[in-house]
């Protein structure tokens, strides 16, 4: 799956000559179908979240977000993302560098392994850490003797989140760096640049958009992960509940409005990062 998730809204694209585009009505019908589909599948659920969230008024909305349990969940979610995202970013850059700039055997297997967390059921991703670090798990007794708590605590939540978000940055960078080739780096190297210099001054400027986008997606997914974290969290109120788990708890307590209010918080976090990204992207492209 080279070239996933890359977006460059090419401005020229819309100015295609008449003979290689569709006639006006066809164009609008296609746009209408696409929007209708998106509306039904993506927009409507989002809308319903906001409608439910504000059903009982703005007061309830603000209260449910200011609730200490919600705040501690928010804090845990941000802490988790703050650890998981940089880790996966460093990994993503290293993996993309190795894969795109060098030739070696088994590259396909390596790429497949990086992809694997995309396809593993979240239930399994959580379960594997229980199998490893749980009290009955392979390493459990050893850890227990030393008083180290991994699952049902922050480390377990971070591990499960890292697992789920491993592919995002790497998968975003690999096609970019492959397309970019090695000429520039080789030129820099022949001019006597050292390894890190080459990376900072030549490679990074070229991949920064892909990198930024990968980080944004990785972050969004890290904050929103539910299934895997649910298995390793232990659901202790105010302690090991992340935002998505807090949403579930509120829902199970029949506090539907509060639950959707917290959910809308997550949606807004995601929307804001995505909008910021397109603004930054647009600004930079208009500079050229």
């Amino acid at each position, binding site marked *: 799956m*080279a070239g996933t998730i890359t977006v460059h809204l*090419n401005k020229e694209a819309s100015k295609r000559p008449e003979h290689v585009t569709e006639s006006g009505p066809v164009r609008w019908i296609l746009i209408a179908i696409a929007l209708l589909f998106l509306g039904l599948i993506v927009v409507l*659920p989002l809308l*319903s979240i906001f409608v439910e969230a504000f059903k009982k008024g703005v007061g309830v909305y603000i209260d449910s977000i200011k609730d200490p349990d919600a705040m501690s969940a928010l804090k845990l979610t941000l802490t988790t993302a703050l650890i998981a995202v940089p880790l996966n970013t460093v990994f993503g850059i*290293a993996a993309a560098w190795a894969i795109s700039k060098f*030739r070696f055997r088994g590259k396909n297997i390596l790429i497949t392994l990086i992809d694997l967390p*995309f396809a593993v059921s979240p239930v399994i991703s959580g379960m594997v850490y229980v199998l490893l670090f749980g009290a009955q798990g392979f390493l459990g007794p050893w850890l227990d003797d030393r008083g180290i708590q991994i699952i049902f605590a922050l480390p377990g939540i971070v591990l499960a989140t890292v697992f789920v978000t491993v592919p995002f940055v790497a998968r975003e960078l690999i096609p970019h760096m492959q397309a970019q080739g090695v000429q520039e780096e080789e030129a820099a190297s022949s001019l006597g640049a050292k390894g890190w210099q080459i990376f900072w001054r030549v490679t990074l400027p070229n991949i920064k958009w892909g990198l930024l986008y990968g980080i944004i997606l990785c972050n969004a997914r890290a*904050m929103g992960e*539910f299934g895997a974290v649910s298995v390793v969290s232990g659901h202790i109120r105010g302690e090991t509940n992340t935002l998505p788990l807090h949403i579930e708890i509120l829902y199970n307590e029949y506090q539907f409005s509060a639950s959707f209010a917290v959910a809308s918080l997550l949606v807004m976090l995601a929307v804001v990062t995505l909008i910021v990204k397109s603004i930054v992207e647009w600004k930079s492209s208009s500079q050229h």
Partner: protein
Amino acid sequence: MKGSKPRNVLPGFGLSMGFTIFYLSVIVLIPLSAVLFKTFELSWPEFWKTVTSARVLAAYRVSFLTAFFAGLVNLVFGMLIAWVLVRYRFPGKKLIDSLVDLPFALPTAVAGIALTAIYAPNGWIGSYLAPLGIKVAYSPIGITIALIFIGLPFVVRTVQPVLQDLEKETEEAAVMLGAYRLRTFWKVILPELMPALVTGFAMAFARGIGEYGSVVFISGNMPLKTEITPLLIMTKLEQYDYAGATAIALVMLIVSFLMLLVINLLQWQMNRRTIAR
């Protein structure tokens, strides 16, 4: 551009490769191998009995069929959305483009609850469908809709860049040769998009088989009918049957891995062919 010659000039292979392997081992490989080791606690006949019991087989069928249909729907509409986003200009395009990523970001449970609320017989859409005798929530259709939601970004985001890079010249040549627009699409554009489409479909499919959070709310969880494989794993776990859970998990893992491997090999071959041309 993707020419491959020995690249010994560049530094950092040892470091980056070493770190990659180390990180993957710690985060992905060692944990996943735990599934394998736990399953070894079962004897072969026990394992076989677990993974081929009627309930489990029915769950595979539900998971694979719904993920397949969701993948197909996403294939068609995902391509359409990518097409519209790349080629046409219309107001609010940037916003729409950002919306495509939201299913990645939304907690799956929230998506599940929201979709159930909409498609339940008393929901916004469900209430119009119910009199027509169409049952969406608590049926395989509901599962499929949840999986369409989850898988949509995979297809759009795979097709988009390819469509962008598609050279105008090829299309123009086809037009000059007198091909109609639709024909150009079938004969020139679609073949170029094929690898990306296959990849997007496969990713959406693979993700769909494993999806749990959003599906449990909308599926109704009826054994043999709308019970999905990840739910069975969960059920076994809650019955304190770890080995049984890992046995089913192992089957799913192998299927996912093989599918991804095939895609990556396919992609690699197609890339080589393009270079050769």
